[in-house]
């Protein structure tokens, strides 16, 4: 059993938020917080101080890349590890994301009942 964690899910799609939340709960009983936009995500990260952030790439107004930059330049959120969540991407795009300093990229569709383990592996969390 993985140790308890709290994850912030930033995705403008409520349905994806629900599925990610459900996956984390079913696999590891992890708690999750949700935000529907980049701005809301930064606010939630500041006040909620989650253990990690799962960030959707394609969002209106402020996309995942912009949100990540804002989180990195904010002293209250820069230490929180970020993993991008995205639909199928080109290998080059994936490399670009990794060069930005994110801890990993999880591609949709993901394996629902091993999502928490995947996050733990990407962040080198002890199991």
């Amino acid at each position, binding site marked *: *059993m993985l140790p308890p964690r709290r994850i912030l899910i930033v995705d403008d*799609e*409520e*349905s*994806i938020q*629900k*599925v*990610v939340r*459900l*996956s984390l709960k*079913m*696999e590891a*009983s992890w708690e999750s917080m949700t935000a529907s936009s980049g701005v809301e995500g930064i606010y939630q990260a500041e006040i909620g101080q989650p253990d990690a952030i799962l960030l*959707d790439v*394609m969002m209106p107004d402020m996309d995942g890349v912009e949100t990540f930059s804002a989180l990195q330049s904010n002293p209250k959120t820069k230490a929180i590890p970020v993993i991008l969540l*995205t*639909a*199928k991407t080109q290998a080059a795009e994936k490399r670009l994301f990794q060069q930005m300093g994110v801890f990993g990229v999880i*591609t*949709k*569709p*993901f*394996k*629902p*009942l091993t999502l928490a383990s995947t996050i733990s592996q990407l962040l080198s969390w002890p199991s």
Partner: protein
Amino acid sequence: MRVLLVDDDNALATLLASQLTNNNYIVDCVADGETGWAYASTFEYDLVVLDWMLPCLDGVRLCQRLRKQGYDLPILLLTAKNKQTDKIEGLEAGADDYVVKPFDMDELLARIRVLLRRSPHEAESVLSWGALSLDPLSCQVRYEEQVVPLTAKEYSLLELFLRHDHQAFSATTLLSKLWSSDEFPSEATVRSHLRRLRQKLHQAGAPTDFIETIHGLGYRLKSLAVELPKSDDTTDLDERSARYLDGLTQAWQAHKGENLARWQTLLQIAERLKAEGLSEQQQVQAVQIAHRLAGTLGTFGLMEGYRLSLQAEQRLLQFDLQTGKPISVAQSAQFYAIVTALGHALDELPKLVCPVDDEPEAPAVLIVDVNGMSYIQQLMAISVAQGLAPTIVASVEAAAKALSLEIPFQTAPELLAPPPSLVLINLAAGEMDAVLDVPILQKLLHFIERLAQRWPHLPIMVITPQADFGNRLDLIRRGGVLVLEYPVAPAAVLAAMSQMLDMDGLSKIMIVDDDAHCLKRIVQLLHPWNFEITPLTNPQRFWMLFNQVRPDLVMFDVEMPHINGFELARVLRSHARWQHLPIVFLSVHDDRLNEEKAFALGADDYIIKPVQGRALATRLLNHLKRAANDNRRLA
């Protein structure tokens, strides 16, 4: 209960095996003493039935060897030798009982039951667990007095659980204990039998988890003690999956509407694209919708919708609107077909996704259609729905570009864009006057030649209104592989395309050769062609295995002990059903008489060993193709 039957009398062994199977025993049948030893020392049996007179190693010596090596399982010796001294010799060798042929089947079964009762594994009395009872003598199972009708396999599973009531068995252990080594079952088979057994017990009133799943350990009877609420730690994977799927289905019901609305917007864009083209802004909007749909549908496990959304996104990204280049009729039709198919895919139900990193892509098909014929558009739509990824190009130049024909011939193939899985070239000009003008026809024919030179293994299909022998020969010489005569229904073209795409690899081949070394070598040689190969060294087991595997082609060595390859071929050809099954002989002897004999028996080929892998595979593929065509014609 698992029984090893060692007897070289095929008829008797078959009869006895079927009687034992009818009595819920799992039977492995072998025909010589050495194989008997190999089986007994490899698998776990509850009893061995042994004929005295056996090839390689006789029954008495096998019995002695088993006892010497510490095997204490019951052994019943079966023989025509009926002298008192023989009986003594048999029993002194370590047999527990001795039955003289001819014997009464009921008596033999009774003696087997007695021997098994003496065995430490067997208890004589009725086995029970809570309200469930199993009577090993009558083979009847009851739950609260209600009879539970079980198949032999379900009965064996339940009996095993009842005899080891606190032990958890993994699917692999259940396979080795309850399935004979001839059956080639998978763990999925075990799970499916368990599921049916659980259903039947539940119908009789037992709780659904009467046989419970212990994550990481396997299956066992659920403890009869008072049930404690489960903590998250003990929640097994099946249960978590079921709960997850429930949650997923509820979430999908709540959000299906918004995804339908997205699809409708995409459909409007596709309709507009056909009628009046697309603005850059609409293109961006459509890409975003398709991308989001892919993400959402994939996450909910609607994999067909996921695949089609990704295809739609890729098509949209290929439209080069910035340079003002118009979108062709073919491109807009392809996009429309994908979006239409996507609409149907939204009716799927959510599933538990197990994506793999290297998930196979839909086979890409390039269709060259210079006249924009409507039946090619129909073909496009139905092939998208069938899981292919077709692209239509409207000119020879565009096709040449897509297939890297403009790049110098010396360039290494790995540096070129990968070719599609198949190319279809339409040489029909129109519905009324189907024959193309000579210049454009010549251009297309030249294109076929260049294509075949650059990609020699790429299947090229040609549809032509001129499919007489001369034209067909010309097309084949240029590199065409399959020629269809116009007019032809789109569904028939799709069937031919699917057949060509399926030809690689999925065929089942059974090879019988008593030389294990040679057999291994052939299997290795054929490995790159992805055949599903069943190797067999003992021709006596051929018929049993053949009926289980139902191969698409059989390959026989000529000289084998007990039954030679010619006899096996005769047996096959004596069945009306197997008149057209390709039979290939492999022989070390370049012997004209044997070769003539093989063909006279109805063999399709006679190959002399040693043989090259590619040559062998090509010959086998040809026989398989021909047989597939024969079968279609007969159907």
